[in-house]
């Protein structure tokens, strides 16, 4: 009897100890979560915190643009080089690489837009009423239209993804590389895409706005990240404008080259669809 009572007590003690351990563990996890999430929330809620997120996501997007342009310029070296590069991007990391990049870009883009829209709303509310007679002393034109240049570039981006990435137009989607018919003819698609003057015009307008956005954005990034000092302020401004103009020239060179006929699809026929190339090969055999 005594033994049973004792063992019962032990069981109870063990049970209580266990629940205490478990509740302690839950409390520890809660504390860890709070200590992790609290700084993130207060960082987001602070004016400088959101600006730093804008600067970092913007920097990531600028690095992407540099890489994107370097790849695009392969269009001038011919069909093989650009299609090889496109194939490499899609096969990199067993096809996962391109998706890792896309997710990274999407996260950066969403952060950049969410933070800037939140900041712009705060800014408008902070000013309250406007001056009856308004004047500016130094602000550049680009800096005054950042939210609009950004949102128009976003609209272009949606179009651009439907146009060249998702390829909603079957004429562009079904193009096959004549040398390797199993792969898509990116080179032919780019040229065919830009042969439409409206597409080229929208592209050039959007890229011009992007250049305006970056001419203020890149220099601002240096300031927000605390890299702009008395010594580096001129350099940060020059880097911003130079990089914006270089990207603009590089990107618009392609539609301009297509429109002026400098870049033409050769006789091997960019309009060949995958099916027609395969049919032709079967006929040969």
């Amino acid at each position, binding site marked *: 009897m005594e033994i049973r009572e004792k063992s019962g007590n032990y069981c109870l003690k063990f049970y209580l100890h266990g629940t205490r351990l478990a509740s302690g563990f839950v409390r520890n996890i809660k504390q860890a979560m709070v200590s992790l999430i609290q700084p993130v929330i207060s960082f987001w809620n602070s004016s400088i915190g959101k*600006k730093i997120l804008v600067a970092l996501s913007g920097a990531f997007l600028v690095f992407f643009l540099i890489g994107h342009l370097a790849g695009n310029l392969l269009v001038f070296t011919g069909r093989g080089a650009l299609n090889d590069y496109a194939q490499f991007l899609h096969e990199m990391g067993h096809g996962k690489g391109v998706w890792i990049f896309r997710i990274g870009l999407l996260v950066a883009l969403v952060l950049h837009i969410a933070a800037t829209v939140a900041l712009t709303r705060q800014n408008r509310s902070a000013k309250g009423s406007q001056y009856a*007679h*308004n004047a500016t*002393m130094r602000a550049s034109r680009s800096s*005054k239209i950042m939210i609009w240049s950004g949102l128009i570039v976003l609209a272009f981006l949606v179009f651009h993804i439907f146009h060249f990435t998702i390829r909603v137009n079957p004429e562009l989607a079904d193009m096959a590389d004549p040398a390797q018919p199993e792969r898509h003819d990116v080179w032919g698609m780019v040229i065919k895409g830009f042969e439409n003057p409206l597409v080229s015009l929208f592209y050039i307008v959007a890229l011009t706005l992007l250049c305006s956005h970056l001419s203020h954005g890149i220099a*601002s990034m240096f*300031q*927000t990240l*605390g890299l702009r000092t008395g010594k580096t302020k001129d350099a940060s401004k020059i880097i911003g404008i130079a990089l914006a103009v270089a990207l603009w020239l590089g990107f618009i060179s392609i539609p301009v080259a297509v429109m002026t006929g400098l870049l033409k699809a050769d006789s091997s026929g960019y309009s060949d669809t995958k099916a027609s190339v395969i049919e032709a090969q079967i006929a040969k055999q």
Partner: protein
Amino acid sequence: MNLTLKVWRQAGPESEGSMQTIEAEGISEDASFLEMLDVVNERIVEEGGDPIHFDHDCREGICGACSLTINGVPHSKQQGITTCQLHMRKFRDGDTIWIEPFRARAFPVMKDLMVDRSSFDRIIAAGGYIDVRTGSAVDANSVPIPKEDADSAFDSAACIGCGACVAACKNASAMLFVGAKASHLNKLPQGQVQKDERVLGMVRQMDAEGFGNCTNQYECEAVCPKEISADVIGKLNRDYVAATVKEAVK
């Protein structure tokens, strides 16, 4: 000289305001801008009207009391001066001059051209100081400070807290003011001990007061009567990141 003034008139903090046209006749070109308003006010009082209310104190450009946005620019388009240092010879006979209060939600209008800038005082109270033992004065050279640091701290310390930076900013951001006040102390050895709590405290108070966010257009730098450089904003950003990281891992 004869001028046409377009002046913001508002009876009180809760009232609706509007622009009123007032003719200012026979103004001496040697008068300061505030003296011109004094002359106009005397005439308004003689005619039994309500004089234009505006802030002023030392009239020497060192106290930070005077404000006024003149033709859309705080302290006027003349660089490196306060409104009290502006003279009527900078205008031409027959000019129309727009005179408005400093605009920002954190600077509510009290009456006419007077605004409540006590939000700046609360930012200072949140970290714009150092805690030191008072008593007999310490020898000036007991703490060696590099000349460059002393000069740059002094440049920041030149801020008179007038609020022109906020008034000029389309976002009503107080980053130049907070940057100047924080770096004034952060650059000196005496300010190091409380550097992080100062930066976090002042930035949080700035946000709580409802000031906007800097979009790096540097209108503030252009209108600052003490010509404080926007470099202090970069330093504030840098110090804020360091303080945030330290606070998160501490």
